[in-house]
């Protein structure tokens, strides 16, 4: 897998994303926001941070950068795109994912380990998780409350676009387990075509035991495995 990690002014988890991909044995490089092509990447990650200082709204300005045009084309062609935290916000602002992320209901930034249940297994991002396996990964955000209007939410649900939900350590969907007030405890979703996904938690910050959890690998490894299968299928 060759991943291009977009670097906006103010991205601060770009290195983390590159390292996460490298730790699982694949290639990653940084792609500056002024570039107009994703090159030979077969996956794109839009990393966490405060692109453009979160001026106006999180991700509102990043969506206009030259590189996002290239990402849109890449996604339209079926390319795999993962938005993490601020990256999720950028994808929603760019219209590549439905809904929006707004201020945490606590009105405070939240940095803690949460538990995720994988809901839909049939995407490049979620294929590698066992039944009932929870992922313990960190969140670190002030505006991670997922919101969509009734119609959009109904559509997301009927198309199985919810990929991850916040749950308790026992796997229960409770309000206590929800760190930011997201509707239906939604932590991450994908688009209708299932090639673009976004999530607020940081899997790239959970790839090695020494930092507290290696559960995040499952998401990156799912992508690598899916792309590998696709390459083989294409070649056949």
């Amino acid at each position: 897998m060759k991943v291009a990690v977009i670097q906006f002014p103010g991205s601060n988890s770009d290195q983390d994303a590159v390292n996460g991909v490298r730790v699982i044995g694949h290639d990653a490089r940084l792609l500056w926001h002024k570039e107009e092509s994703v090159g030979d990447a077969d996956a794109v990650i839009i990393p966490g941070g405060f692109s453009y200082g979160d001026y106006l709204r999180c991700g509102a300005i990043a969506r206009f950068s030259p590189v996002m045009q290239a990402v849109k084309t890449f996604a339209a062609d079926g390319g795999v795109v993962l938005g993490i935290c601020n990256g999720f916000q950028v994808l929603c602002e760019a219209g590549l994912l439905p809904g929006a992320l707004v201020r945490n209901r606590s009105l405070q930034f939240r940095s803690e380990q949460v538990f995720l249940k994988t809901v839909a297994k049939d995407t490049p991002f979620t294929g590698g998780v066992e039944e009932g396996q929870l992922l313990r990964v960190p969140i670190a955000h002030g505006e991670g409350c997922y919101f969509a209007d009734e119609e959009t939410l109904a559509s997301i649900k009927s198309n199985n676009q919810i990929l991850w939900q916040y749950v308790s350590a026992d796997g229960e969907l409770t309000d206590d387990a929800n760190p930011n007030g997201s509707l239906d405890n939604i932590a991450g979703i994908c688009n209708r075509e299932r090639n673009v996904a976004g999530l607020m938690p940081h899997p790239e910050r959970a790839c090695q035991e020494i930092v507290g959890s290696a559960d995040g690998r499952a998401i990156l490894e799912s992508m690598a495995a899916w792309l590998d299968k696709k390459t083989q299928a294409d070649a056949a």
Partner: protein
Amino acid sequence: MSDPAITPELIDQHGITPEEYEQIKVILGREPNYTELGIFSVMWSEHCSYKNTRKLLKGFPTKSEKVLIPAGEENAGVIDIGDGLAVAFKIESHNHPSAVEPFQGAATGVGGIIRDIFTMGARPVAAINSLRFGSLDSAEVRRLFRGVVAGISHYGNCFGIPTIAGEVYFDPSYEGNPLVNAFALGVLRHDQIARGAAKGVGNPVFYVGPATGRDGLAGAAFASQDLTEESADQQRGAVQVGDPFMEKLCMEACLELLATDAVAGIQDMGAAGLTCSTCETAARGGTGIELRLDQVPQRAANMTPYELMLSESQERMLIIVNKGHEEEVRRIFDKWDLPWAEVGTVTDTGRMVVTNHGEVVADMPAAKLADDAPLYDRESKEPAYLAAVRAFKLEQVPDLKEPEQVLKNLLAWPSIASKNWVYRQYDHTVRNGTAVFPGSDAAVLRIKADSLPGGGVDADETVPEKYLAMSCDCNGTYVYLDPYEGAKIAVAEAARNLACSGAEPLGTTDNLNFGNPHNPELFWQLKEAVRGLAEGCTVFNAPVTGGNVSLYNQNPNGAIDPTPTVAMVGLIEKPEDITTQWFKDEGDEILLIGAAIDEADPLLGLGGSAYLQTAYDLKTGTPPRCDLAKEKQIHTTVRSFIQAGGVKSAHDCSEGGLAVALAESCISNHVGRETDKLLGAEIDLSAFGDARLDALLFGETQGRIVLTASGVDAVKIEERAKILEVPVVRIGKVGGDKLTIKTAGAELSWDLAELHDLWFNAIANKMK
């Protein structure tokens, strides 16, 4: 608009004494003009010049075989960590601004310290902070607390630095004058160290970063006066406004520029902005600088030279560029879309000459301005209140009633209670380097390739991974009750927290927060505290690499408790040594290292204790004694146990004593949101016979660490401790869902879930 005339009132308003004014006239050979008066006012303020404390600070130990840049030479000290790598770290205060505008005051405190680190050429990779407020029962205090934490969170998180440790204390003496001490640490290779000297006559001087406005005007002078009731209204303009996004861009651009040959010298514009950075770099370089104000990017209309020189607008850097390399600055700063301007030239006159549209508006010798502030020997006198403190006797401590309730009250006391309400607002995982999060004795950070400037994604060198521990500590109550002993304890506690995490101290940075130095009793506190700090840092071979002095911390009600905050950094040999404070497995043996009660202390460790304060509202009594040699021996011994393998957890005894340390070991393992792994213990203290129960459970005798190990390893630890002549007593076993403590005369029991709830939610409950 013409400048105001220089009158005695104007001179006084600028915080300059008549004698200092005479000295200014001697230095200039004439009267100063208004702009020059302003310049002297900030450069000779206490905050910038340390005029009241410079002589005292000479007592600090500043050298060791690992110190590469000692205190006082540059903007931060630098210490070697092996394999050609080094760390730069420092702590600084932003107390007065936070009292007036808590959000921006705290935010810009973080911004300022981060700049001090990257101006050394290091990539800032971790932050910690020490905060103090009045009682949370006050709505005003809650407002300040909320604002300060939000400000630190806003700045650090957006900038992208993990805030991984800290301390928060609540005491009425800080009411109206909160303390906000911010620490940052950065990593660099030895050959990446950058200096703040204006070298090379003829070199152009560049300004980079956002335009200058009127914010923070004369912030340094504001920091050097007592707070009054009018301060809030009058001084709001002196509070700087921060933009962490700008700082992030500025840092990346500066680190990129430093990797080229373009930079001859670099300094951040912090306190006293353009003034300080210009004269200090010139002074260090033995050169002069001609500064052209009309070239300085300005974001307010009609700014006067006075305003431009004294503004403390944030996120600006002064860069002395090697002539011929100006293109690098343009290329890199344009890439990051940051403003830049060529604003001056290095000269050989030794003078700082400031012009505005060709007209000279200030002309003064740089070195005299930067280095020759008058130094004062303030009068000191032992405070009268100490007589009553020393007279307090053990017989005056009421009998211990309801020990079970006492422990609950201590765990819910905001100064002891869990600080998760604070640190869950701080991103502590960004940069993927935090090995031990907030919540244990010390934070642990791993240093890896991308911790270095230029060491990220595309670097092809391998960097050996290293593990740093850091902690900041100070019990202000102890220092108030005995400044010398309390200061020693601050150092000892920091070293002890490092030892518990498996680390050996490398170096220290200190933030001295004290009252008005013209008050002899308060100056005595400062003098004695410095004496204690110096001794402590010497014994632990953790030299002071730099720090900050914040004086004039008081409010109309009186002075704050003297608070010399100590932040210490240590190195852990290998990742297997990383140790945390909570119990790990059922059946583990619990050992107490160190004497349970200091029998030589007439108050048996109860003086100044949290117990006396919470149970009886008594803030008195000589605090526990600190035997530095014994402490060092205990730390070295515990570290050796950890390095030999077999230590499952280590937690030191501090506020609240042994009972609190045991309870914390049972309830502080926070696994995830709403998920805590509570692990009980059966403790038997009957080995201590008929010792006073209050002293045994809640006394704060120093030099004690609670260790756990499996049965087999516990035996090895006991044998080694006996050989090393370090006291060790087996006090119990891990297991169950209760904490039970049996003594010669009592059997106490606590439900863990209840203790956890009281401790974990205490502050959140007060902040509802």
